[in-house]
């Protein structure tokens, strides 16, 4: 979920309409899956949070304005720019195939870049690369001062030690290995190149190094500054569609800011293409399909009108998707855009008509009867987390631990409810006794590669006269209410006093344990009151 900041005045200029901030907020919620996080009146800066993760063209004021120009009817249909063809050329050597095969580029000229615009360019560059470009792996973007570059530009992969340049932020030359080791950006993004024997490099025709994609630009040619009015854009990556999308979005933005766009010819060994390509996706859409998805009955003309609002162009039963969007995978995506353009709040709701029989899970009734029976014996119900501290659990081999836990407190899946009930006692030492607590809930454990999950019911009773007899009374009452005959077989259990721990047997199957909590366990929890407990596997019990 990207967050972006821009000048509200700038946005209104791009939009071509005056708005108040509350009006803008309403529009965002109604159409754009976004909300204003804050607006600073003094600096006129608005900060937005966007829900979408697949619409990077909206992560900048230019794209948002373009979107709303359509939705508000300020401009109609697909918004285009004209890229001039030029002699700019990028040659792509086969050596990049193995590491970072795709590149797009263009040149933009004609407007002085001020502080604000530079900040905006960097913002969309970062958001695009980090989020949509998957931390630069899928796509990374470079911007350069055009004047210092002699075309054609060459994109190749080289031996890491064979190329040396001064990276941004440093004042001495390094080879590519050194950049990965020593430069902060190198350290941050080295993982992308892991395993590659040659690293990507952009050089101009004089051999001057422009950048080491996707890591860092050169400090001599690779820095765009305030006051520059001509720039070179390039995007490299592992995903063809994504680098192409980056070029489209930047070209649209710069064209709308008053730049002239000059396309570049990308010359691969086997093919040659022009970027930004201006290529668009065609997708079939009919009023019938729109009705099926959205329930809206539209004429073909109405559908076309709504599609135009959403920035599409129509050709028969096909919608043409603007080149700055790559999120459209299926006709349902277009149908949703039609519904948004129509306005969700204008869509009349309809009730479900089918008749279905509601029912809870089979065990719910039984579990709830048991819970109520235990409450009737004076127990307070507890509802705990399923994740717990692994050191509080018994039986290391069967515990399901988390690989990437954030804190020890939630580092494993509970395999018993007892530790958490003991935690209740330990946190309430100064609360009135007797303390009788119970919990019913999911526990899970593993047996080799097999994972088991079951409902467990546990009772703990703590007071100065708590003893086995009392707990066995509870057990008889619970099992008696289910008509189950049980036996208790002496057992050894780390939680209980030796000689005062028993397995609970129903129909020759062990379904639980009962006993007096051992003083060692009590003192581990800091409990200063005798306590007894029982725990039942309800899945086994209900099977009986």
């Amino acid at each position, binding site marked *: 979920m990207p967050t972006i900041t821009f000048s509200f005045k700038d946005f209104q200029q791009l939009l071509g309409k005056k708005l108040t901030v509350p009006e803008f907020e309403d529009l965002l919620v109604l159409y754009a*899956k976004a909300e204003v996080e804050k607006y600073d009146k003094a600096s006129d800066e608005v900060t937005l949070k966007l829900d*979408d*993760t*697949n619409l990077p063209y909206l992560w900048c004021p230019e794209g948002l304005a373009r979107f709303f120009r359509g939705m508000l009817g300020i401009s109609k249909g697909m918004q285009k720019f004209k890229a001039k063809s030029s002699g700019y050329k990028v040659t792509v050597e086969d050596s990049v195939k193995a590491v970072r095969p795709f590149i797009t580029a263009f040149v933009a000229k004609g407007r002085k870049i001020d502080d604000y615009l530079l900040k905006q360019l960097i913002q969309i560059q970062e958001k695009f690369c980090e*989020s949509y470009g998957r931390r630069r792996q*899928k796509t990374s973007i470079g911007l350069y001062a055009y004047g210092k570059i002699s075309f054609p530009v060459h994109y190749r992969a080289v031996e890491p030690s064979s190329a040396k340049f001064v990276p941004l932020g440093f004042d001495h030359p390094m080879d590519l290995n050194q950049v990965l080791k020593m430069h902060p950006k190198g350290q941050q993004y080295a993982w992308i190149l892991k395993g590659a024997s040659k690293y990507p490099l952009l050089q101009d025709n004089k051999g001057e190094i422009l950048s080491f994609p996707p890591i860092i630009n050169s400090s001599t040619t690779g820095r765009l500054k305030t006051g520059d009015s001509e720039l070179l854009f390039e995007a490299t990556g592992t995903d063809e569609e994504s680098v192409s999308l980056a070029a489209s979005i930047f070209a649209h933005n710069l064209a709308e800011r008053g730049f002239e766009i000059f396309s570049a010819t990308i010359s691969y060994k086997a093919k040659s293409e022009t970027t930004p390509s201006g290529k668009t*996706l065609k*997708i079939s859409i009919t009023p019938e*399909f729109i009705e*099926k*998805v959205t*329930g*809206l009955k539209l004429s073909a003309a109405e559908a076309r009108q709504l599609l135009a609002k959403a920035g599409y162009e129509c050709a028969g039963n096909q919608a043409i998707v603007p080149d700055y969007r790559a999120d459209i*995978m*299926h*006709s*349902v*995506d277009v*149908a949703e855009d039609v519904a948004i353009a129509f306005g*969700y*709040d204008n*869509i009349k*709701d309809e*009730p*479900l008509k*089918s008749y*279905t*029989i*509601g*029912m*809870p899970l089979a065990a*719910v009734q039984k579990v*709830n009867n048991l*819970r109520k029976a235990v*409450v009737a014996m004076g127990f*307070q*119900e507890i509802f705990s*987390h399923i994740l717990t501290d692994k050191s509080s659990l018994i039986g290391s081999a069967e515990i*399901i*631990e*988390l*690989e*990437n*836990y954030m804190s020890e*407190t*939630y580092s494993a899946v509970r395999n018993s409810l007892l530790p958490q009930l003991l*935690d*209740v006692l330990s*946190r*309430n030492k100064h*609360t*009135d006794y007797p*303390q009788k607590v119970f919990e019913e809930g*999911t526990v*899970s454990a593993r047996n*080799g*590669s*097999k*994972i088991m*999950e079951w409902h467990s019911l546990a009772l703990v009773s703590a007071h100065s006269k708590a003893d086995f007899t009392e707990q066995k009374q509870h057990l008889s009452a619970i099992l008696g209410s289910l008509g189950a005959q049980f036996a208790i077989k002496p057992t050894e259990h780390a939680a209980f006093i030796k000689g005062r721990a028993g397995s609970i047997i129903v129909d020759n199957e062990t379904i639980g344990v009962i006993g007096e909590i051992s003083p060692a366990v009590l003192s581990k929890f800091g409990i200063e009151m005798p306590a007894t407990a029982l725990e039942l596997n309800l899945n086994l019990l209900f099977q009986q």
Partner: protein
Amino acid sequence: MTTEKTAEIAASLHRLERAVLPHISKLSSVEDVVVAARMQEVEVLRALQWLQNKGLAKLTEKIEEIIRLGENGKNYAKSLLPEARFLNSIANKPQALAEIKKAANLSDEEMGASIGALMRIKAIEPVAAAAEKTFKITESGRQIAKSGLRAQRFLSGQNFPVGINNLSGEEKNIVTELKKRKDVIKEDVVKKRTAFLTELGKEVLKKAASAAETVDRLTPEMLITGRWKEAAFRSYDLTAPVPRVFFGKLQPYREFLEEVREKFVSMGFEEMTGPIVESEFWNMDALFMPQFHSARDIHDVYYVKEPKYATDLPRQLVKKVKAAHENGFGTGSKGWRYEFSEEKTARLIMRSQTTACSSRKLASTDLKIPGKYFAIGRCFRYDVIDTKHLADFNQVEGIVVEENLSLRHLIGLLKLFAKEFCNTDKVKVVPSYFPFTEPSASLYAKHPELGWMELGGAGIFRPEMVKPLVGSHMQIGRSPIQHRQQPMRIDPRSIAHSASSGIVPVIAWGIGIDRVAMFKLGLNDIRELFSHDLNFLRNAKVV
């Protein structure tokens, strides 16, 4: 006070009160009464409390500081203070330091302290002419030696422990001095309770002595023998406080979830479930969330350490889901166009969304069409715990599977939820984004007390998600749905929608139930939903 009244009071005396009463007329200290009445202290105190409530006795409590001797203090009381021993050793003639040390049996430290103390009161003075450092006793020293040092007199003469209030001003000064020394004086704070009878108490005592014996408890034996007919039952003090009793209670948040369950059942929804340790397949891949999706990051989901991989994934279904991700599986979709990893799909994680239950249900052979399903399930997220986030929490969500469902039904369903859970008709349904639904919507409802709140999200499952799952179900011939196989796309830049026309629509929704729960339970901190605070739970209102 009338005689009848005192007689009535006398008749209502409890066994314990009756036992204590005569003793207070003679003794005032509670300790003494305990001894004399041969009762436990708590019993005496309880009786005195009751007597006081009735105006028969007056119980006072004084906090007193008590002085007793520490280990060194006891030694000094018996075998004299170091300076006293010092003084005694030179009582007859001046002595060199080494001699004094030996005779008085003093450590170096005690020597130094003794010299300082004795010089201060001018009891000794050095002998100037001596070769070795030598001290002699002065005239006033002789006086002191005769009568004993003040501190020594105090230590040896007092009967410890002693209340500090019983000491004279001078003795108190000595105590202050001695406290500076290590382990000589110990102080304790004790409660001193005394009781005495009021005038009424004295009268009642007279009556009580002469009253006939009353009966405390009715016994089975009295009923059997009929002896109850002669018995006079003691009257109780019905206003006396009693110990609190805590009745068992269901946990309020869990009860709230039970209500939610009942609500869905009553709306015709059938409950579904799934495991908490789940594979990425059911949790994400089956939902058409691409394997590179940001919500699948190590910083969003908990990974299970061992075992790492599920071994029970349905192979055929995995193949179909893989195809959906890679090329759209003939739904008319482009798909996500990347290489789907069958290893990653088997990776075990902690379920991060109850939607995993929905994907399992859609693929199950007992799926009913039309069908409405819901799940209340625990989910796990890699989040920093604070007032708004938990490591595990409950989600409520579900699906509606039915022919000819559209966005209009989805909006209708959301409005129904707003009515059920927020009791309001004031709703806003706005566009939203979820990776597995298209179209998607969010529901804002105006809660009568909370104001506008985001109550839930919903959408229609993408065809790329539904086709592989429900398709597997249809092959077994249980579905009334016509399923038309479409040719794979030919032009990668042109998408045909007709392929999806045979896919049954599935509305999916989720409700942010925690906020409603917190409001209902009066909580501001989400962590309190799983509170281990017994006072809080025992006193929670029963909602």
